[in-house]
């Protein structure tokens, strides 16, 4: 604790908070020297979060509740703010919620970015955010019992599957359009390969007037699973499985959160290896997205070429981690697998080839007139919307904000390397594609540098002590943006609470604004540009509101129309 006391970063935020809102701060706890949790009076919650967000340059990273009734009798809500103006640190605003009323003032009317988090708290804990404008369910399915809140400690076992309470889908899609519109559902199956979702496009002719969507069809209950079934040291392997592409990022984020909570210092060599593997993941993820960008503008040859080259990045992952997906190499306190000379040389060789081939391909892609024509000015994420919703990754960097966890809150091997932050001011799909292309080469440079400057020493810090009820944040810049995990240890070698927020979670809410004003044929392109991996749906139902008639056409038809833009299926 004394080491933290000397080098606290961001103390002035707390001092200013005490001055601006006297008597509101009840407790101030530092988890690391850049992470502070302040407990405040519940009534001040919206004002404090708004003040930190807009006046002090904060961004909402994640918010969640915790059932702390067995510890002090109340629930607690946590709002994690990443402070990025000037002094960079994490400020977690915590407030206790009375267990009898279960009510807390909603922050969403003041800070839009809180909307998904508060809806999730409503579903999972049955707490009531008073004043929340959108009270629909977010995570729980429509046929889930009204009073069963899965993450409360006293409700259910993780294996319980309650009987459905309703046979109809009663989720109301919101349409803000003023005039009459047609309704186009996209989904509910496989809008993306890792996150099936149901999109409702409200169109007038070919133009999207508004859009709404329903996610969480594949909610796997991982947080409950980790809290009840597994030991805290085994969760790294579960965290791998959060995502099929950036699994390693999640397991690093989880491991970091526990390391921060327990004060474990990860050996430098392990840190560098972790960041090398994170960048390998970025290589194959960005190649995937560049390939898909080709596919959605109808440049399928480019798509094939990107995927052919991507195979080299996959080989790299297989060689460095022993599995094609960068799975199962992380442990709390370090890493399980070393990079030795043979692997280093092979990596350098493969990276050289990748760099050469991708440079050629990217040049070719940018010379294709189709690309600029289809992506420039499309799917505009207005900087103001971006500021209000706290999106992450290339998505927000294309709207002119230099947000990148690697440089804002350096972790692992990024501490001794200044990672360039790529931004664009075009706010469109093209900007996001270009940023990914530039970051691809930055990643290669970083891996090359790290391989040459690898510190010696052990791979794993051993002999740490499990401290009950300690908690902290862990964060990583995944290919799609910041992944953030919050873990609180229990008293039984398990986790008391684990909150894992994947980067795409932060990117969905503003998507609605990005879709507005574009044409239907651009919808798959825009959805793919936030890189939710892949945008494919099994079927599309079209409802003509005026005639009250509905027709179903295969999704491949919409996708084909997106590429060829001929013979509209709407006619």
């Amino acid at each position, binding site marked *: 604790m004394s080491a933290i006391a000397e080098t606290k970063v961001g103390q002035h935020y707390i001092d200013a908070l005490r001055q601006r809102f006297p008597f509101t701060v009840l407790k101030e706890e530092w988890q690391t020297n850049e992470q502070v949790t302040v407990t405040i009076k519940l009534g001040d919650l919206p004002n404090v979060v708004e003040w930190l967000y807009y006046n002090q340059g904060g961004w909402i990273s994640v918010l969640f509740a915790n059932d702390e009734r067995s510890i002090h009798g109340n629930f607690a809500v946590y709002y994690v703010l990443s402070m990025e103006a000037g002094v960079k640190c994490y400020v977690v605003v915590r407030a206790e919620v009375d267990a009898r009323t279960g009510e807390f003032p909603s922050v969403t009317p003041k800070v839009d970015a809180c909307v998904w988090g508060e809806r999730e708290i409503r579903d999972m804990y049955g707490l009531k955010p008073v004043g929340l404008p959108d009270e629909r369910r977010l995570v729980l399915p429509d046929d889930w019992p009204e009073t069963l809140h899965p993450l409360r400690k006293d409700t259910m076992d993780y294996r319980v599957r309650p009987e459905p309470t309703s046979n109809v889908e009663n989720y109301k899609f919101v349409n803000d359009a003023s005039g009459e519109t047609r309704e186009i559902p996209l989904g509910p199956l496989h809008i993306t390969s890792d996150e099936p979702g149901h999109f409702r496009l409200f169109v007038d002719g070919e133009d999207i007037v508004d859009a709404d969507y329903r996610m969480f069809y594949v909610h796997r209950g991982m947080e409950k699973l980790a809290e009840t079934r*597994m030991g805290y040291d*085994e969760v790294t*392997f*579960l965290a*791998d*499985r959060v995502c099929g592409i950036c699994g390693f990022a999640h397991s690093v984020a989880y491991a970091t959160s526990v390391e921060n909570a327990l004060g474990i210092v990860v050996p430098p060599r392990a840190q560098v290896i972790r960041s090398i593997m994170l960048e390998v993941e970025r290589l194959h993820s960005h190649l995937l997205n560049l390939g898909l960008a080709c596919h959605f503008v109808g440049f399928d*040859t*480019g798509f094939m*070429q990107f995927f*052919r080259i991507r195979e080299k990045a996959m*080989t790299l992952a*297989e*060689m460095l981690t*022993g*599995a094609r997906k960068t*799975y*199962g190499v992380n442990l709390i306190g370090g890493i*399980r*697998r070393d990079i030795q000379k043979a692997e280093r040389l092979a990596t350098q060789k493969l990276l050289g080839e990748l760099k050469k081939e991708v440079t*050629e*391909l990217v*040049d*070719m892609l940018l010379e294709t007139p189709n690309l600029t024509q289809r992506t420039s000015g499309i799917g505009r994420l207005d900087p103001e919307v971006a500021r209000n919703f706290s999106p992450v990754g290339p998505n927000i960097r294309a709207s002119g904000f230099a947000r990148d966890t690697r440089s804002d809150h350096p972790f692992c091997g990024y501490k001794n390397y200044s990672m360039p932050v790529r931004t664009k001011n075009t706010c469109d799909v093209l900007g996001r594609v270009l940023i990914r292309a530039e970051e691809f080469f930055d990643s290669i440079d970083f891996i090359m540098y790290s391989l040459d400057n690898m510190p010696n020493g052990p791979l794993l810090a051993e002999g740490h002590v499990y401290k009950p009820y300690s908690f902290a944040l862990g964060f990583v810049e995944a290919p799609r943006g910041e992944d953030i995990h919050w873990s609180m240890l229990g008293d039984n070698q398990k986790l008391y609470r684990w909150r894992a927020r994947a980067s795409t979670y932060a990117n969905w809410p503003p998507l609605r604004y990005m879709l507005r004003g574009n044409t239907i044929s651009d919808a798959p392109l825009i959805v793919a540009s936030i890189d939710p991996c892949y945008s494919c749906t099994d079927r599309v139902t079209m409802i003509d509101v005026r005639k009250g008639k509905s027709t179903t056409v295969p999704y491949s038809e919409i996708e084909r129309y997106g590429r060829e833009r001929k013979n509209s299926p709407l006619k």
Partner: protein
Amino acid sequence: MFKLFKTILKTGEATLKYPFAPMPISPGFRGKPEHTPEQCIACAACAIACPANALTMSNDTEAGTRTWQLFLGRCIFCGRCEEVCPTKAIVLSEEFELAVGNKSDLYHKATFKLANCTCCEKPFAPQKEIEYTVDLLKQTGMSAAAVEAKRNLLQTCPDCKRKQSLQVTDKVELTRFMKKGSEA
């Protein structure tokens, strides 16, 4: 456009011949865990380490056996079992073609005999684990007679050991100081 055609020509055929030709894999690849029952002492270290609960151990006290089971449907190929195995009985192979036509083919089993406690005669530990410990003691240079003397202790279950040590503490006079106090 011309450049693209050149790239395509230069690349030639990118499609692999797999499955008609073997698929090249990187050294150190973690595939299907291979178990060697001859080498296994059924200590259950792997079952404790397995994060996915793919590896399990179950005792059948009626039959006096312990069954080691691997369910490949749950295996995440992390290799924790290989790391903790004291006898190298489980090693991750490079085999990755694991599709089966029948779900029961995903289960691998090995049954080991449990040794009976010399005291209560109930099964408590795998015979092979006890033999392994005896062999380890021999390796440390202990004389054969001394090892045989130890065997009796090794063949006693924890419950009986506890009872035996209780009998010893029975003889310790615990109230010595209390008596002193009352006398004073």
